[in-house]
Structure formats: structure tokens, C-alpha cells
């Protein structure tokens, strides 16, 4: 489960409302995702590329239960989220959509555009631009299988098939 991409760097307390603004709540995901994080970085939604990695400070995803916050990142192709810490519902939502979210205490060392590589299962982050490697807490063991299978939906499908088979 190795993900390679450029870093998009954000500060502390990035909340769910700026990832999925209420004004676009009723709009299809394509439209909502275009406004993802625009209040913080207007270039993000148009310039982020599949596999890019969001790096943030403390309490990333604080706020609402709106799953569209994690979904918008996933829709834009974000490969993983590294943060010093997470808002609890965002963290759960991200993993349930198969979007790896890892606690990364060294987030402050990452510069915008750095080439990062993340192995969520092994718990390893490499900053190729800086030539540094970090061991981080891997995904929680009880969620590893779910995230590896792509999230809660594939996991539920397998569970339901297991019951009927």
C-alpha cells in the first residue's frame, strides 16, 4: 500500500466546513470538490493531482460529521492524509472510504511540493525531496483489513457474502 505524490501543506485546525462548504452541500460531489479547501488555498482543488498527499498540523478535520469532507479529498485523488492529529469523525470517515490517514508528528518539516512516499501498512513516510525517512504509527490493527479492502463498503459486502455463503 505505497502512495507517492507531491505534498500539499496546511496548518492547524483545518475544519470540515472548509473541505466541504455548506453552500455546496446539495451539489453533486464534482461541484463540491471544486470548492474543497478554497477558503484556505484557492489553488488546491484545481491543481491537486491524483496521488498527491495532504500534510497538515493539529486537529485536521475538526468539526462536522459531514463525510463529504473526506470524500472531496478522495474525489480529487488525494492518496493519503498525514497530520499531527485529526478530528475524530473525519479520521473515521477517511479510513472508512479507504483514504489512509496517518498521525505524522513531523508534519512541520514538510515543504509544499515535496515528493513524499507513504506506506500506511508498514507505517513509513519518506520525504524524497529532503532525503528523510520516518517511522509512524501504522493504521489501527482493527481497521487495517477494512482500509486495505478499500473501505467500509467493500468490507461490508464481503461480510454479507460470508454470512449468506
Amino acid at each position, binding site marked *: 500500500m505505497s502512495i507517492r505524490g507531491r505534498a500539499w501543506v496546511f496548518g492547524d*485546525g483545518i*475544519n470540515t*466546513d*472548509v473541505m466541504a*462548504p*455548506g*453552500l455546496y*452541500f*446539495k*451539489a453533486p460531489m464534482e461541484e463540491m470538490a471544486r470548492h474543497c479547501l*478554497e*477558503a*484556505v488555498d484557492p489553488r488546491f482543488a484545481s491543481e491537486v493531482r491524483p496521488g498527491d498527499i495532504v500534510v497538515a498540523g*493539529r*486537529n485536521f478535520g*475538526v*468539526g*462536522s*460529521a*459531514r*463525510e463529504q469532507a*473526506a470524500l472531496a479529498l478522495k474525489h480529487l485523488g488525494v492518496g493519503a492524509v498525514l497530520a499531527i*492529529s*485529526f*478530528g*475524530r*469523525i473525519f*479520521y*473515521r*470517515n477517511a479510513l*472508512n*472510504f479507504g483514504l489512509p490517514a496517518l498521525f505524522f508528528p513531523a508534519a512541520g518539516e514538510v515543504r509544499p511540493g515535496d515528493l513524499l512516499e507513504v506506506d500506511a501498512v508498514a507505517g513509513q513516510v519518506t520525504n524524497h525531496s529532503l532525503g528523510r525517512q520516518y517511522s509512524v504509527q501504522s493504521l*489501527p490493527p*482493527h*481497521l487495517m483489513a477494512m482500509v486495505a479492502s478499500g*473501505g*467500509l*463498503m467493500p468490507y*461490508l*459486502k464481503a*461480510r*454479507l457474502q460470508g454470512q449468506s455463503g
Partner: protein
Amino acid sequence: MQHTLAQKLLARAAGRSTVAPGEIVTCCVDLALLLDSGGPRRIWPRLKELGVGVWDPERIVLVTDHFVPAVDAESAAILRLTREFAREFGIRRFFDMQGIGHVVLMEQGLLAPGMFVCGGDSHSSNGGAYAAYVMGLGAIEMTGVVVTGEIWAPVPETIRVNWHGRFGRGVVAKDIMLMLCRELGMENAFRVIEYGGDTVSAMSMAERAVLTNMAAELGAETGLVEADQTTLAALREAGQEPPADALQWRSDAGAAYLAVHSFDAAALEPQVAAPHSPGNSAPVSACPPTRIDQAYVGSCMGAKLSDLRMVAEVLRGRRVASGVRFLVAPASQQTWRDAAADGTLEAITTAGAILLPTGCGACAALGAGVLAEGEVCISSTNRNFKGRMGANSAAVYLGSPYTVAASAVAGRIADPREFLT
């Protein structure tokens, strides 16, 4: 071994004799709250994809609140789908346009000490005022809940927050929460906040729910208040007989808390949170004079009957300042009826405030009352993130209903104590 209330509630839900902080447990869900926002519109397509129905329609409460009343074809379609879901799956407890879900659960007596509840909204922690463990979750996990009736939960550490003494005039539970967002910070994942002390014991359920609701802003797993006679009386008033073991749902004396904080209620001033975070708060006396365009009283946090009575108390014999629009959206139809019966609504409208339909409305930029670029609003709601109530450059300040009403009269952010005798 002594245990916290959170440990006891999770042990019961997990079918275990005890649980310890740091463990992950699988809990059986007693009640699932689905709202129109993250409910059927996001869950039903997933049920179809999985080819399954709901695990137990009797354990699901469905409420329309985020998109009511419909303001455009999109919100109308979401509401239609929500109503079809209720019919399709035989959801008997479907409350359509009756109020905001967290308040409806209280009014209907659907929460009781000892329960384990999941809600598809971050402010589900509101229900922790009833000594029930209520987890806020996203729609993806609520999908799992309505399919399996189960959810995983981390067993949290508990921070105990005691308040002692009596509030000064014009100070209420909301001021406690704005102050705690600053003092405790908003980063308390894997922790529960348990409120106690004689100040909390003396509070009504409506005020206790202010404390537990805004545990979401503290970032906590949930908020809790231990069961007592006030809890039982509220259940009886809602027409429900409390469970026989209701009063056992308290932390043991000597239970291990991560931290215990004690505060003096008499020393607390009215608080105001400046843009763009509830933690960006200060005593109102330290807030520079700030002109406002809008004052808003609404949401699950700040528009219950007791909140509307605070507003009326300030407004009686006064007028909303010229150039300010003061919008008031009662939290439920029951709130509306009660506030109409006791003269509260009349006092509010006579002063020039404008009543809006019950619903989440402007709090989340979904309904009537959203803000334009550059506008300034003071609000009785629980969140003031950038763009939360409309345009990104709008400035939202948070205060108690007293402070919001005082500011509406003054035309600037004002200390409610100047308006109360």
C-alpha cells in the same frame, strides 16, 4: 475497581463486565439517529448496492431538519427521498419538520440513562446530557450501523469538569462552553468530557445539553452528565418511564480521570468567540466594539425554550437596532408552541426580531439567513468556522442567547449584563 460513566456505558454496550481506556470495543447500538443531511440520501444508495435493508426499523429515529423547509428543487428532492425511505423501511419514529433531531430526541423521551446511541451528526453528543453514550458519526459509518446494528468505539479517557457556585446575572451554560473551548482546546479525540459539580446539578436538561452538545467543539468522543433526579423528571415529563437502573449510571467515586478541572461559576463572565473558531473566545468585556449586520438565534445549541426566554427577557421594552436583522429560528415545533403560549414569541416579534421556520437553517449555511461577503453576525449556534454560515469573508461571533439579543438591541457586540436588572 472504580469505573467512569463512559467505561460503564461502553462495557454494557459491548456486553462486557469492564472495559479499559485504550481498548477498542464493538458495541450494540440501542438507537440510531438519522437526519436528512447524512441520512437516507447518502445511506439508501449504499443499502441498494449491498442489497440489504435496515437491521431494525424500531431502533431508527429519522428526522428532517437540515433542509427544511425546502428552498429549492434540490432540497425538495432530498426531503422527498427521506420521506420515501421512512415508508419503504417502516420507520415509525419519523419526525418530519418537527424540529432539530437532537432536540426531538429530548422532547420525545427517546434517550435514557445507560443507552448506547449513534447519530449521523457531530452534535449527537447533545444526548449525553441523559447519561447515555451518544457517538456522532459520518453517513458512511451510519450505513454500517443501520446494516449491522454495531459499531466500533475506542474506550476513552475521561476528563471531569466540575463547576461550583451560582452564575452571575446574564451568564449561562453557553458561556461555560465558549470558555472551555479556549481553556481545554478543541483537540480531545479519544477522550470524553464529563461535566459535574453543583452548578451542573442545578441545571435543567436543556442547559446540560448545551454542555454535552458542544463537547463536539472540544473534539471529544462525546460529552456526559451523570443521571440524577433531574434526568428522571425530564423523562417522565416526556411521557417515558425511566429504566429501573437509571440512577446507577454515574461514575464511581474514585474512578480514574485523565484530569479533573474545577471552575467557579460566579467568576465566569459572558463569553464571545471571535471568527473563525469557537476556541477563539474571550470575556465579552474584552471584545472590542464590533458593529453587526445580523444576529441569529437558532440551531440545536441555542434555540430551545430556555434560550428563547433569555432573548425575550432582553428584548422586552426594547427594539432591535436599526440596520440589524435579528433572526430567530425556534429549535422545534414544540418549542414554538410553548414559546407562543407563554408570550415569549410575542416579546421577540414586538421588538422587531424576525421568526424563521424550525430547522438547522443558517447555522450551516443550508437555509434562510445565510451571510453575504463581509457581513458580521453574532449567533447563538455552536460553530463559527470560515464559511460556516455563508460567504467565506463573513465574520461570525458566537455568544449566548442573552449576548446575541443584547447585541441585536445595541447594534454592536454588547454585554448582556447592561440589559438585565
